[in-house]
């Protein structure tokens, strides 16, 4: 190949296909420096950044999924609690209603009893008073009637009447007609 680099007519002293060794040295050193710096300090860090980015995205998705699951779980829990609370409330309402009904019945019963008792007492008293009055009246009416009749007849009928029970019979007869 070196025969090509021979001067042709004294004009060309260089052959472009034959490398200059000084340039090979300079180029090798320069490219080695470039490779060292870029391959040691730059591109591995880029690869790390890419990886970190992938992790960040995947981690974000995972976190979002976890949060979603937690939210779903909480929702379920709240729903269950709500349903429970609703059942409880219904039960309490039912209980209260039943209680109220019971109390009402109790009060009513007591009131009825009380009123019955009051009425009974009144009736008894009335009956007792009536009996007293009747008894007194009977005596009085008998006396009055006998007195009146004695005046009219002019003689004392009192002993007679007492003896024969006439007044009593008469009054009994009046009572029975009155009762009719």
């Amino acid at each position, binding site marked *: 190949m070196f025969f090509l680099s021979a001067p042709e007519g004294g004009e060309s002293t260089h052959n472009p296909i*034959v490398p200059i060794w000084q340039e090979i040295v300079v180029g090798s050193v320069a490219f080695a420096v470039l490779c060292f710096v*870029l391959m040691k300090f730059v591109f591995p860090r*880029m690869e790390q950044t890419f990886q970190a980015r992938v992790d*960040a995205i995947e981690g974000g998705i995972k976190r979002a999924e976890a949060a979603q699951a937690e939210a779903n779980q909480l929702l379920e829990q709240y729903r269950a609690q709500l349903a429970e609370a609703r059942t409880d409330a219904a039960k309490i309402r039912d209980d209260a209603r039943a209680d109220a009904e019971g109390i009402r019945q109790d009060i009513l019963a007591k009131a009825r009893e009380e009123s019955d008792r009051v009425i009974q007492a009144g009736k008894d008293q009335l009956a007792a008073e009536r009996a007293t009055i009747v008894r007194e009246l009977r005596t009085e009416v008998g006396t009055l009637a006998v007195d009146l009749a004695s005046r009219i007849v002019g003689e004392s009928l009192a002993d007679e009447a007492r003896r024969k029970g006439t007044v009593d019979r008469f009054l009994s007869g009046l009572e029975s007609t009155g009762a009719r």
Partner: protein
Amino acid sequence: MFGQANVLAAGQAAFPPSVEDFYLPSILPWGAHDSYWITKFTAMIWIAVGVLIIFFLATYRKPQLVPTKKQWFAESIYGFVRNNISVDMIGHAGVRFAPYFTTLFCFVLLTNAFAIIPLFQISPNSHIAFPAILAVISYLLFNYIGIRHHGFVKYFKHALIPPAPWYILPLLIPIEAFSTFIIRPFSLAVRLFANMFAGHMLLLVFTLGGFAMLNANAWLAPISVVSWVMTVALTLLEALVIILQAYVFTVLSASYIQGALAEEH
């Protein structure tokens, strides 16, 4: 670095351009023709390395989960090479090669881009030394990976013996050996070098051609203008080639590694 511009301004440029236009006088010592340590080319290489290191360190000093604009830009370069070259070509195992491929891609892209960046206006890759280094690294890399993955004997058996009838093998094995172990690194280096070399040569031809016509005869001025318009158009084409060659170099390296890792043909 301004030598070219001065030459153009002085109207001294020789036409047609020759290979010598790719070998500029060195910077230190100034103007020497046989010193290659500090030249425009090595300076451009160091500038490319410096720019890339500063860019990536600055944008990735404090990486955040939610990236800033700059961080996003740096990440999308890496993400492009990682997903669209490494993983696409090699599969999931390709992720571990992504840092090297990204470094390779950025380096080739930026050094290629010098071909059309004002004041640079020539790509270091138009000197074969630089593509050759990268090609040799790719070559060593895919062979090393293959040997480590399969073992020495199995790797060469795997690389050299295609699944073919035995009587065709005497023909196929030399072809395979030649193409895999000799042609691959050579073509990788030459493809990039030749593209950059030819691109610069084209731009030189049309730019210097315009000056040459103008100097030869003032009546040719309109044609000079056409020539310079062609230069602009070719610069756009060159932009395409710059990106394409950086991509191709990286994809082919990835493809060789994929081939070395593959279980079957």
